[in-house]
């Protein structure tokens, strides 16, 4: 009898009506960067059911501490201190261990450390805005940072991004590869943002809003937000349709 404790079938097809459509004129850059022909839908093969492995040896001790990983000795980034944690799991609810989580964000003033960035808010010399970690055996990750500031961006004449953190996720298979953004509970800019509003449903948007978790907060030190991430799951069965003789 084969091990049935974890699913081994092909990956469940991505629900394209749940994700933002490629073409969304409210987000102007999508207009010329969106494929117009239908995607070719096919079951996953080994090429999508495998994915890269990342070793703990590449992860430095401060990689998940954005308060300090770009700071001078004895100093730290300016801003509201936050801890972000959560579980990376698949659609069956199974925690995904040892998977790489990469994050990047603006500083507390809403400024990115990037040469194309033009916002007048100042850089923080002690803040790089980038971090990473591997999930633990149950799929949990955590990192420390500052609350990113909102910032204006050229789309409409007065569009602002809500406070957000970018997440890049791998999972166990390239079929699960995902980049998304985390938003913060209670931010009024979430519902006015053209990028957020590329997502068709309110329910799906709410899946990207991290609640404040006072129980996980560190008294007199750091507020915590919990952000769980769900990657594609696999079908539960081994059975696959195949022609006779193959």
């Amino acid at each position: 009898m084969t091990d049935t404790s974890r699913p081994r079938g092909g990956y469940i097809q991505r629900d394209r009506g749940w994700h933002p459509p490629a073409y969304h004129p409210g987000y102007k850059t999508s207009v010329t960067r969106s494929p117009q022909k239908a995607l070719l839908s096919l079951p996953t093969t080994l090429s999508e059911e495998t994915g890269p492995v990342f070793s703990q040896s590449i992860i430095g001790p401060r990689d998940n501490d954005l308060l300090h990983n770009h700071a001078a000795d004895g100093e730290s980034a300016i801003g509201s201190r936050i801890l972000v944690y959560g579980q990376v799991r698949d659609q069956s609810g199974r925690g995904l261990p040892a998977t790489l989580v990469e994050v990047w964000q603006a500083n507390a003033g809403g400024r990115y450390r990037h040469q194309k960035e033009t916002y007048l808010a100042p850089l923080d010399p002690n803040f790089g805005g980038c971090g990473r970690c591997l999930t633990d055996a149950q799929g949990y990750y955590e990192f420390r940072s500052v609350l990113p500031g909102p910032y204006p961006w050229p789309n409409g004449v007065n569009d602002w991004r809500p406070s957000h953190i970018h997440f890049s996720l791998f999972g166990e298979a390239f079929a699960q590869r995902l980049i998304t953004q985390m938003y913060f509970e209670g931010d009024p800019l979430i519902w006015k943002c053209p990028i957020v509003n590329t997502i068709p449903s309110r329910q799906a948007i709410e899946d990207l809003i991290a609640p404040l978790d006072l129980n996980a907060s560190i008294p007199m030190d750091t507020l915590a937000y919990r952000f769980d991430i769900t990657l594609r799951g696999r079908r539960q069965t081994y059975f696959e349709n195949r022609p006779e003789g193959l």
Partner: protein
Amino acid sequence: MPQSLNYLNESPSQTAGPYVHIGCTPNFSGINGLYREDPGSIMLNEKTLGDRISIRGGVYDGMGVPLKDALVEIWQADAAGLYASAEETRGQSDPNFSGWGRSPGDMESGEFVFETIRPGPVPYPDGRIQAPHITFWIVARGINTGLHTRLYFDDEQAANAQDPILSRIEQRQRLDTLIAKSESSGVYRFDIHLQGPEETVFFDM
């Protein structure tokens, strides 16, 4: 009410935005001292088995303008057709090959380059053999969900003709968008067109 299936919804995708390089290739972005090297910048070493190849190309928008803020990743089998993955059950892949590459593109031109090896053949779920191919994943500002495509080789005509995925492409003239062109020995060009008459075939797999 019947029992609940209890599947969770996948987290919805959001664009990687204009600053994806900060998070994914910080050294390229000028944020130095955090990571020893940018992830995915080196796929092989001198002991890696297989034929060395270079793959270069650009990502173009619907007006034919090259993107300079894209992030391109590739995933491929080793020379024997095995993946360097915990999910690989057919055997041990080449320990000197990661199979995964990531390029922020050139600062000026936006062109990506991958120094890798020619991948071996990988079976399709029904047992047929797929032509040698490399999976591509493209994210950028203005791309709401990462785009998935595949590179095949123009000097693998016999294998391409038998490939179970290439055979599924209805508009045969679009097949060409998935074929990398050999420019010189071991150097291939693979341009990705997000939109327009040359639009690349993108997959939902």
